C-alpha cells in the first residue's frame, strides 16, 4: 500500500475521534455558558466526558427489543458516515475522506438515516413518551427543512453545483464567503439550523420535564452513551457542514474550531434565553420568516 492509502486510513480514524472530542468539549462549554447566564458557576468543561464515560461504565442496560438494541448503532453509523462525506479541512488529504463521492443532497438524506434509527429504537421501547417525542421531532423536521432547502437551492443555483468541495472553492478570500455573497440564504439556513440543533425554542422533541426526554426516555447506560456520542459527532458534522458552505471552510484545525464555535454559539445563546415553542408553533414559525428569507435569496439569484 502506498502512502496515500495510509493517509486515507489515518483520516478515517482521526476524523471521528476529533469530532467526538470537539463535540463533547463543546457540550461541556455550552453547559458552562448556560450556567453563567443563569448566574451559576457551572460544571467543569470536562463534565460531558465524565458523563459519557460513566454511562459506558454502567454495568447493566436494558432494552425492549431488537430495534432498541440496534437503533443507537444506526445513529452512530449515520453520524460517522455523514462526517466522512463532509470535507473537514480544505485541501488536506488527511481530512477529506470520502467527500468527493457524495454531495449536499446525499448528506441531507444521510442525516435522516440516524434520526430514523433512533426513531425506530425509541418506538420499540413501547413508551408512549418516546412515540410522542418522535412524532414531534419528525413534524419539526418537516418545518425546518423548508427554509434550509430554500437556502441551499439558492446557493446551488447560484454556483451551479451541489458539491461541497466546489462551494468551498468559490469562497476564496474573506469577502467571498457565502455569508456575504448571499446573506439571505445564510439567514434562512441559520434559522433552520436553530431547529436542527434542538435547542430552545425548538427543543420540544426532548422536553425532559414534559415528556420525560422523549425518544431517550427508555435509553440508559450504554445505549444512552452511544446516543450522546453520536449526538456529539453529529453536532460537529453539522457545524463543519455549515462552516464549509457559508464561512468558506477552514484551512487548519484552529480556524475550523474558531469558526464552528462561533457558529455554535448562535443556537446555544438563542436557546438559553428562550422558552419553548409548541410543535405547530415551531412549524409555522419556520414556514413564515425563514421561508420568506429563503425565497428572497432565490429571487436575488434568479433576477
Amino acid at each position, binding site marked *: 500500500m502506498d502512502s496515500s492509502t495510509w493517509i486515507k486510513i489515518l483520516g478515517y480514524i482521526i476524523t471521528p475521534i476529533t469530532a467526538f472530542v470537539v463535540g463533547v468539549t463543546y457540550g461541556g462549554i455550552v453547559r458552562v455558558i448556560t450556567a453563567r447566564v443563569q448566574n451559576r458557576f457551572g460544571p467543569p468543561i470536562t463534565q460531558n466526558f465524565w458523563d459519557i464515560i460513566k454511562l459506558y461504565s454502567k454495568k447493566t442496560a436494558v432494552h425492549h427489543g431488537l430495534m432498541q438494541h440496534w437503533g443507537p448503532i444506526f445513529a452512530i*453509523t449515520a453520524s460517522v458516515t455523514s462526517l*466522512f462525506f463532509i470535507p473537514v479541512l480544505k485541501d488536506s488529504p488527511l481530512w477529506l475522506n470520502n467527500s468527493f463521492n457524495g454531495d449536499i443532497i446525499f448528506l441531507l438524506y444521510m442525516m435522516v438515516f440516524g434520526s430514523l434509527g433512533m426513531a425506530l429504537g425509541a418506538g420499540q421501547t413501547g413508551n*408512549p413518551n418516546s*412515540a410522542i417525542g418522535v412524532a414531534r421531532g419528525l413534524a419539526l423536521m418537516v418545518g425546518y427543512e423548508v427554509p434550509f432547502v430554500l437556502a441551499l437551492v439558492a446557493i446551488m443555483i447560484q454556483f451551479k453545483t451541489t458539491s461541497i468541495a466546489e462551494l468551498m472553492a468559490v469562497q476564496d478570500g474573506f469577502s467571498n464567503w457565502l455569508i456575504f455573497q448571499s446573506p439571505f440564504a445564510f439567514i434562512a439556513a441559520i434559522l433552520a439550523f436553530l431547529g436542527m440543533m434542538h435547542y430552545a425554542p425548538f427543543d420540544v422533541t426532548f422536553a425532559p420535564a414534559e415528556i420525560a426526554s422523549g425518544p431517550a426516555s427508555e435509553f440508559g447506560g450504554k445505549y444512552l452513551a452511544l446516543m450522546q456520542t453520536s449526538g456529539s459527532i453529529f453536532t460537529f458534522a453539522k457545524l463543519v457542514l455549515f462552516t464549509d458552505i457559508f464561512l468558506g471552510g477552514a484551512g487548519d484545525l484552529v480556524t475550523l474550531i474558531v469558526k464552528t464555535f462561533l457558529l455554535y454559539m448562535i443556537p446555544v445563546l438563542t436557546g438559553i434565553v428562550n422558552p419553548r415553542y409548541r410543535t405547530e408553533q415551531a412549524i409555522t414559525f419556520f414556514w413564515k420568516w425563514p421561508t420568506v428569507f429563503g425565497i428572497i435569496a432565490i429571487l436575488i439569484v434568479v433576477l
Partner: protein
Amino acid sequence: MISVPVILSVMFLGGVLAWLANRFVPKGASWTAAIIAAFAGYLVFALPSCGGEYSLALGSITLVWKSTNYSALFAMLVAVLGFLGILYSMDFMAGKKNLGYYYMNFLFALGAMLGIVYSQDLVSLFFFWEVMTWSSFMLVIYSGEEKSHKAGIKYFAYSAIGAYLILSAIVILYAQSNSFLLSENIKMFSGMSLGTQIMVISFLALGFGVKSAMMPLHVWAPEAYKESPSGFTAVFSGALSKMGIFGLGLVIFKFAANTEIFGYVRETLAWLGGLTAMLATFYAVIQSDAKKLLAYSSIGQLGYIIVGLALGTPLGIMAALFLTIMHGAFKAMLFMTAGAVYMRTGTTSLNDVSGLITKMPLTFLTALFGIISVSGIPPLGGFISKWMLYQALLETNHYFLIIVIFIASTAAFLYLYRFIFSFFLGQKEKEVEHVKEVPWSMLVPMMFLTLFVLFAGLFPGVILDPIGKAMGYLGNFKASWEPQVVFSAWGEKINMQVIAGTIGTIFILGALFIGYKNKKATRVVSTKDIHTAGEIPTENENLTYAVNFNQPFERAIAPILKWSVDKLFNLLGENLESTFEYLRYVYTGNGQTYAMYVILMVVILILFSGSIFGIHL
C-alpha cells in the same frame, strides 16, 4: 418464435384455464395461475426487446403489436410483479370464495397491461385499456361488501371518464391522420393544427392521468386500493397505475415533443405532479388505515414520477423511470406487508395493532427496507431516484418545484414512520400473542423485493441499462452512468460503492464492537417495563401512542388541508360523485352489459370515423 400474441394468449387463455381449474380441482386455480404467470413472465423476458412484431388486419383497421425498448421495461415490471402478486395470493387468498374469478381477472389484468405496452396501434391500446379497467374493477369489488361496491363504482366512473377522453383523442387523431397506427399518428401530429394538438394532448394526458391518480383525478384511488385484496393491490399500485405513466411518457415525448406547446405541457404536468406529490403526502399523514395511507403515498410517488417525466431532461426521465421500477418494488413490498398484517390480525387499522416485530420479524424487515427505500434514505434504491430527480430539477431551474417536492419527501417520513411504528413497534399487546409469521409463499415475494431494492441501491447501473434503452425509444436522450456511479448534468456524481461501503463498514464495526459486546451486558425486558413514574401498568392497559399519531403536524397544516379539502376536493369530488350517480344506470357493474357497451362504442367509432372520412373533411 416468441411473439406478442403468444404472450397475450397465454395470459388470457390461462385466465380462463384458472377459472376452469377452480371448478374441478381444489386449489387448482392458484397453482394454475402461478404457473401461467411464471411462464408468461419467462416469455416476456425471452422476447427480444425490439421485436416480436405481429400485425393483424381487421377490415380497414390494422392491429400491430410489437415490443420496443420502452414497452419492454414496463412489460418486465408487469411480469415480475404479476408473478409475485399471484405467488403472494396463493396463501393470502387461501380459503376464500370465488378464487377462479379472482385469478381469472388477475391474469386478464396482467394480460391487458402487457397488451397496452405492446400495442402499436390506437385501437388495440384502447381495447386493452378497457379490459384492464374492467378486470381490475372486478377485483376491487371482489369482497362483495357494500363498501367495495362503492369504491368500485367510484373507480369505474373515473376510469370511464378517462377512457372516453382517450377515445375522443383517438377519434380526433383518426379524423386527422386517417390511421390508427401509433407511428403514423406520431409522424403526422406535428403537422396538425394547434387546436387539435392542444385537444389531443390534454385529452390523452387527462385520460392517462386518471390511471396514474394525478390530482385532482385521484379521488378513486384510496378506496379502490383499500378494498382490493392485498395480493392484487401490490400489482394495482406497483404496475397497473404505471400504465398511466407509460401513456404520459408517450404523450409527452412522442406527441407533444414536436409541437410548439411542448414547454407548456411539460410545465403544467410538472406542477400538477409536484402538487400531487405534496398534497397526497399531506393526506397520507392524516390517514389511520394502513392501506389508505399507502394509497395516498402511492399517489404522491406517482406525482414524483410525473414530475421527472415532465422535466424532459435525460436525468429527469431516468429518475422517473428508475422510480417507476423502484416504486413498483417498494410499494408492492409495503402493500404485501399490510396484507400480511391483515391476514394475521384481521385489520389494517393503524390504531388497533402494535408490537408485531417479534411475531413477524421477516415481515418487519420487509417493511423496514420498504420505508427506507420510499423515504429515499441511502443506500437503498429509492435514494438514487430521489437524487436524480433533485439534480434534474436543479439543472432545469425549477427552484420552487424542488421545494414542493422536498416538503413532500420530508413529510413522507411522518407517515412512513407511523406505518412501521403502529404495526411492528410499540407495546406488545395480548391480542397479538397468537400471531405467527406468514407462510413462505408470501415471504418469498416480500424477501425477493427486499433484496431487489438493496441490489438496486448498490448497483443502480444494472437497472439503468434497460432504462437507458427505453429513453432511446422516447427520444434522443443521452446520460452516462457506471454500474455503481450515477452522474448529474452538472458533473456531480454519486458513488454507491463508496457510500454503501462506508455505511456497511461502520455499521458492521459498530455491530461487532458495540452491538455484540453490549449484548452480553444487556437484557431484554418486556414492553410493559417502562418508565411510567413508578406506576405498574396492568395487563390490559393500552399504553400505545397510535391514535392521532401525527397530530402536531396535522395542527400545523390544518389551514392548508382545510382549504383544499373543503373548497377544492369536496366540491370537485362530491359534485362529480353525485354526477356519476347517474352513470350507475349505464354502468350497472355487470360485466356483460359493459362488454356490450364496449362493442357498441367500437361500432360507433368505426361508423363515426367512416362518415368523417367519407365526406373528406
